């Protein structure tokens, strides 16, 4: 194990981890407000990647305009799913809305297969992101380098919104006690929609960075990242935004380090993620940064 090799793997791990973190924030915020695991989140991420492909390849938009359009379109999709699949079930048992989320996820996957076929599509090559730079014997794409910073910046932004703004205060109130917040005159629907706006825009940015690093997109692209990021959210303490980022980093790093130190087990990366989930649930179900919540009887 040379220093160079370790450094490169460290950067690989941080970069992969920060991609997980971006998606995990979306899971954790929706869970915080609605106590719902939004299984469609990974598929919203996949759709965002396709939006990017079409705005650049088909409509020939320059990348910076395409990014804005992709974020807007993804937010619209996220809010649409909330309005159609989750809102009508607001007073239904929690299990129903969970099943509705799984349904939304399948709908998106099959819709994508129908619209875009199951054959993978190449992600547009945005030179600003995909150019490889050399640092000594290290070679990294710009996307790899900037991903962690983008994630930290967005985390800061999300924390700012939730802690310092009025809508953020409403979010925290709703997350603490849904019924009371409603009685206090907080517009619940607006708060929930804002949560989906934030979650979906992070998924869109995540998808653009993901696509630049892994430029092969197909209708099932969102499945694995979706599951991994859910694990990351649980690991960090679901409902806790900073926890989601910590969970994402740990998971990404653990995957890369497994390959680095135990090359014979490279085939077990996915399995390890699930083992982590089970261990967390058994040992510390509230996650690393999760608050201890006592169920009221």
């Amino acid at each position: 194990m040379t220093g160079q090799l370790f450094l490169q793997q460290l950067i690989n791990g941080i970069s992969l981890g920060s991609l997980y973190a971006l998606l995990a924030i979306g899971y954790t915020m929706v869970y915080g407000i609605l106590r719902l695991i939004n299984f469609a989140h990974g598929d919203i991420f996949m759709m965002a990647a396709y939006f990017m492909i079409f705005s650049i390849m088909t409509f020939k938009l320059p990348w910076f305009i395409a990014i804005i359009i992709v974020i807007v379109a993804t937010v619209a999709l996220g809010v649409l799913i909330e309005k159609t699949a989750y809102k009508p079930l607001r007073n239904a048992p929690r299990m129903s809305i969970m099943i509705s989320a799984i349904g939304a996820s399948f709908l998106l996957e099959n819709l994508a297969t129908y619209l875009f076929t199951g054959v993978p599509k190449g992600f547009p090559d945005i030179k600003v992101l995909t150019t490889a730079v050399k640092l000594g014997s290290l070679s990294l794409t710009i996307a790899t380098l900037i991903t962690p910073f983008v994630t930290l910046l967005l985390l800061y932004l999300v924390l700012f919104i939730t802690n310092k703004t009025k809508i953020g205060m409403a979010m925290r109130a709703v997350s603490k006690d849904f019924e009371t917040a409603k009685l206090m005159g907080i517009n619940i629907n607006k708060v929930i929609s804002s949560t989906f706006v934030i979650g979906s825009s992070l998924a869109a940015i995540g998808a653009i960075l993901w696509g630049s690093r892994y430029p092969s997109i197909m209708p099932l692209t969102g499945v694995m990242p979706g599951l991994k990021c859910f694990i990351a959210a649980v690991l960090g303490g679901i409902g806790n935004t900073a926890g989601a980022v910590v969970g994402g980093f740990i998971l990404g790093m653990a995957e890369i380090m497994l390959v680095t130190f135990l090359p014979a087990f490279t085939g077990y990366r996915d399995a390890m993620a699930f083992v982590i989930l089970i261990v967390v649930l058994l040992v510390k179900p509230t996650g690393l940064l999760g608050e201890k919540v006592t169920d009221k009887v």
Partner: protein
Amino acid sequence: MKKVLSLLLSLLMVLTLFTACSQPNNGGPSNQEPQTGGEEEPGTEEDVIKIGVFEPLTGMNGGGGQQELGGIQYANKMYPEVLGKKIELVVVDNKSDKGEATTAVTRLIEKDKVVAIIGSYGSAVSIAAGDIIKNAQIPAMGASCTNPMVTQGNPFYFRACFLDPFQGKVMATYAVEQGAKTAAVIMQNGDDYSVGLANFFIDAFKQLTGDPNSIVDVSEFQLNESDFNAILTNIKAKNPDVIFAPSAATTAPLIIKQARDLGIDALIMGGDTWENPALIDVAGEAAEGVVLSTFFDENDPVTNEAKKFVEGYKKELAGKEPIIPAVAALGYDAYILLRDAIERAGSTDGVAIRDALKATKDFEGVTGIINFTEEGDADKNLAVIKTIKDGQFVFVDSVEVQ
């Protein structure tokens, strides 16, 4: 808290269940019903002979499956009849999934009552369907499934292509000829094609270099993996002369691109699945210089049938694909081999067709003169090596190995 915990755990279980079956469920609506070639005239049992086409049209191998299907459908257009009856192709999508493969083949045999089956691209699905084919005694003709286990011990499975031990040897020979002394291998855990070909390459490479330590790294990855940075970083540290990464055309561009981004300049090689436009479209400049082996080269038609095929199919593909994919040529061969056998058998009985296939002698196909070995494999000893240059697949060499 206990409630939340148990809810989460049960959810996880439900979720894994769903993901496990989500793949088979992900076909488009076009896959809900088998597409029938002769939709205009449904035809009764008497005036139509049904041949099943068993290919992955979606999933990991969707791109390759569709190329192969194109060749089969073109052959059907050229030779639409056998025994004075119309041949109807019944296409099912096996979704590149082993579980789905058995369902798809059972459906062809039980529901559509096909007399024979063509396919599949991807050895894993062919192997998975093998037992059903053997027990139903329906002859099957693989076009491009190269793993030896497809036909081994299965008297009803034949194939039109060469085998992985041969292909592995061809690539190892090429690598050694290029001066390679060390190699790293990347394979997909659970994919019979990838693991098989990788191991044949390893054996051949060790033998040719005479150095048991010449394979410096063997890494595995799983289905739907996108991130190869970690294994490639390990490989970079070992600095091999070549990287051999037999993989699906969906995964290959990711491996190639990430390798080049990490600054790896070793020669990157793959197998027959790599002759797919996806490699060039997705990997772009990174794909320049990769080397692959394939079955056929349109610039070098070896038989009259090949000349006819290249001329006609080129027109068919105009505007869609720049070159004729080798798997389309094999799909074409698989169809005409089967049609010829049915003609000679004079009946649609499975055993009779099987016996006729076995008796095939010096059949003139697009990919060469075809005879079958005892095992039902096309007796071929010629492979074509291609590279990617200026965004095109370019012929490098044709290699004969005895």
